[in-house]
């Protein structure tokens, strides 16, 4: 049992507790983006993949490093992009639907019009 291992375990346990605390406050509405965001965070294994590519010195090592780098990069890039794509869809107010999609363009009530103008602004940051 080395002191380095002890430090690692301490960090692991504390990070786990911080994780429980922070994540239990995420509303159910955002659970899919949350999971996707957590997914992209574990893409940090790319760091590990890069380090093994740096230390590899034989064919097997290169093959392992190649697959690890490809897997990890797919994880990290895909994860962040898809999370961003999902979160972009969460809006406080409806945004104008592009013409041709709603099938009744131009027939909106005055209420609908007002709503659409208001929807142009970014939602206020309330916490």
């Amino acid at each position, binding site marked *: 049992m*080395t002191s380095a291992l002890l430090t*690692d375990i301490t960090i*692991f*346990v504390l*990070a786990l*507790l911080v*994780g*429980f605390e922070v*994540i239990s406050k995420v509303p*159910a*509405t955002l*659970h*899919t983006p*949350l999971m*996707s*965001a957590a997914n*992209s*965070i*574990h893409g*940090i*294994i790319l*760091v590990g*993949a*890069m*380090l*093994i*590519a*740096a230390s*590899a010195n034989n064919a*097997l*090592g*290169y093959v392992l*490093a*190649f*697959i*690890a*780098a*490809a897997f*990890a*990069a*797919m*994880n*990290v*890039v895909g994860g*962040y*992009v*898809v999370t961003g794509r*999902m*979160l*972009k869809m*969460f*809006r*406080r107010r*409806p945004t104008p*639907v592009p013409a041709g999609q709603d*099938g009744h363009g131009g027939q909106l009530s005055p*209420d*609908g019009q007002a709503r659409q103008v208001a929807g142009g602004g970014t939602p206020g940051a*309330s*916490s």
Partner: protein
Amino acid sequence: MSAFDWVIQLVYVAAASCFVLGLHLMNTPATARRGNQLSTGGMVAAIAATFAIIIHAGTISVTGWIVMLTGALLGGGAGLYAARTVQMTAMPQLVSVFNAVGGGAAALVAIHDYINLAGASAGVPESTTVTTLLDVIIGAVTFSGSIIAAGKLQGLISGSPITFPGSRVVNMAAAVVGIGGAIYLIVTPSVPGLLIIILAALVFGVTMVLPIGGADMPVVISLLNAFTGTAVAMAGFVIGNWALIIAGALVGASGGILTKLMADAMNRSLRNIMIGGFGTGDSAAAVEGPGGDVRPIAADDAAIQLAYAQKVIIVPGYGLAAAQAQHQLAELAKELENHGIEVSYAIHPVAGRMPGHMNVLLAEANVPYPQLREMDDVNPEFPRADVALVVGANDVTNPAARRPGTAISGMPILDVDQAKSIIVIKRSMASGYAGIDNELYVNPKTSMYFADAKKALSELTAAVKTLVG
């Protein structure tokens, strides 16, 4: 420790802080995007720091650079393409695939490390062996398990529980070989031994997920997410990198919380789910609920009920997503709102194929998120609702859950039966995953609109338009 090492370590700490703060900002939809951007920034910093380490050390070969960069470009390109083109209904599959590759990469990092150490004359320190083996086993189980889960979600593998004679035995044997082999390896380092453990872990992952039914997928995905996080944290132990440990622990915590929330929302224990098969076992003899007749309704009558309501609560279920009818539903809701009717959506935690899936599907259909209401929040409002419109949801609305002795007893449900009137859009009287009749359908307040969700909602919208227009 040189000044260079100091800077690098501080960058890793900053990256880890960005991950924590990024997750913290996800506590409201308004700040969630900034959270994701912050988290991305942390990731970029961590990767840049790693580049600096590699260049500073200067020991990397040209082949090493080529392998790393082509691998990362190929993988990154594939990830980018998948993320840009995926349908929101297919999100659970994609998350499963990302779980698989993350777990796989974590296992590969440990395998590489182990082979190097075993080849060295100094041998493998025991503490390293333990974390390495944990990383390899958890990573490999996650890899094969997530692939099977993704295959089930995509429909490539049957979504119903798959068992074959002796499947339980194979599963147990793989577990025994994996654990026994791991104990042996701690004492005697051996590369072939590691290979056997990897195979056992892969087999275990497959036989763990195959018998799990489609309705339990939200739990399985969450659990595999927690596994990947743990594998990445273990990889951090192996290569001595704190950023990996912290990031892995955060993901482990997230997956753990979601697993518990999903299991609670279905009132099933994790053990029960892993053993598999909703309604396939010997469910207790059901206590007979109130019988009665089903009242079918046509589009025009349903539209009248909706158009003259003051408050409508929509209860969407997976059937809505399966019919790809979320846009039609949003259009109907918009029509009602323009007419001054208060509309909200009651969303059960397990609506969809992964935690929170229904919210994303509705957000995609332009439904503003303040209208998306969680179960505990919206349940007290059902008695004030003039119409509850149930689209593609079944078991989560069944009042039988309140009585003991049924397959779903104790499961938290949406109090749809408290509404003044109820319209259910459904293709047939077929029962849901729990395999029991829904007592809501024979409630005197309930009208059944038998049709495909997409067609039914379009007809309803048209009928409402003629009424209010």
